[in-house]
């Protein structure tokens, strides 16, 4: 015997359509019959003075048909190794930079080799799909233009060669240096589609 909800689907009780969330350890998450494979971060990364993809931040996603907003969030570990490690971060949607996501993080300047600043960095943006035309630099993309997979990721760089930062790196542990699984810090990615 069929369930009543097979014939009359239960309405969603809130405006969340789906949540995809995971650690960049290579896992595959299946939501609503679609599978998403996260990056697999196996080492730490020193930034350079050119923008490069932040390892583990990338996810390929096509939102459900009735989506109005897509929230993307990436938590990553930062270490300022030179003079505070001033570094810039930006979110890129299918190759186009979302300027409204530009941010920098840094510890304070130290000229004594005291490069201790370590904390979680976060890049987040809520894409607006209710618009009628695209302005991806402002995070606006018409739903009719996001019907197939697009890649969302974070790119990062040092401010200059004098201000070097690392990502995905825990430098210390229990009074000494971190190593192995404690040293590499895998980013966490979250996607929420709102109706």
């Amino acid at each position, binding site marked *: 015997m069929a369930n009543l909800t097979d014939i009359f689907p*239960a309405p969603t009780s809130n*405006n969340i359509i789906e949540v995809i969330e995971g650690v960049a350890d290579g896992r595959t998450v299946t939501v609503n019959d679609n599978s998403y494979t996260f990056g697999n971060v196996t080492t730490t990364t020193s930034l350079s003075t050119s923008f490069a993809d932040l390892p583990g931040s990338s996810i390929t996603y096509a939102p459900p048909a009735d989506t109005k907003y897509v929230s993307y969030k990436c938590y990553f570990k930062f270490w300022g190794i030179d003079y505070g490690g001033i570094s810039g971060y930006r979110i890129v949607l299918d190759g186009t930079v979302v300027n409204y996501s530009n941010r920098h993080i840094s510890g304070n300047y130290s000229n004594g080799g005291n490069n201790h600043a370590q*904390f979680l960095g976060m890049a987040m943006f809520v894409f607006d799909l209710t618009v009628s035309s695209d302005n991806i630099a402002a995070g606006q993309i018409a739903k009719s233009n996001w019907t197939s997979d697009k890649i969302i990721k974070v790119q990062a760089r040092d401010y200059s060669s004098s201000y070097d930062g690392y990502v995905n790196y825990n430098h210390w542990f229990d009074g000494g240096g971190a190593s192995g699984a404690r040293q590499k810090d895998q980013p966490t990615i979250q996607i929420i589609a709102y109706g």
Partner: protein
Amino acid sequence: MNSLNNFFPAGTSSNVLEIIHGNCDGRSIEVGSGTYTLPNVTTFQHLSTSYADVAGSSFTYAPPSDAKYVSYKFDFHWDATSSAGISHWRLLVDGTEITKAYQQYSNNYSGNHAHHHGAFEATVYTVFDLTVSSDSAANAQFANWTSDKTIKVSAREYASSYQAAANRVEYFGSGATFGGQNWIPPILTIIALS
């Protein structure tokens, strides 16, 4: 005419009643309880030594009738503009400070007030408890939240030698800013839970 749900109530898929979540760029978000327009932040904000409202943080809301908890979260970019940028961030509901939501943000002091490189993502956050029997705004407790209340963040610097800014991107790549944009809109998240 009756609804089918009057006879066969739909199963609740979770205890989340609604979420209003977006960048403070003036967008309007429609959820079950209404349509909400987020603030439109178009520049950064230097703090002073007096408390002032933080741009983008203000949100006026009346939760659905069956809400038991309301979560308010204001994510913004914190930037030291002088020294360690010691700064104080209070959360207010209809003008009353929620004392346990207070945040102090700062970076390390280098020994030189001219060194102000500190910058990170910061949050002011609380969860209102609507299951209580009487109101205590200072404790984020409301027994009868049936009409609009305004929630916002108010901030100041510790002193004129420890300065900070909200929503400011001071260094991005060589040339300090990117594309002429030296600010970033904050993000508001309101969640009503049953």
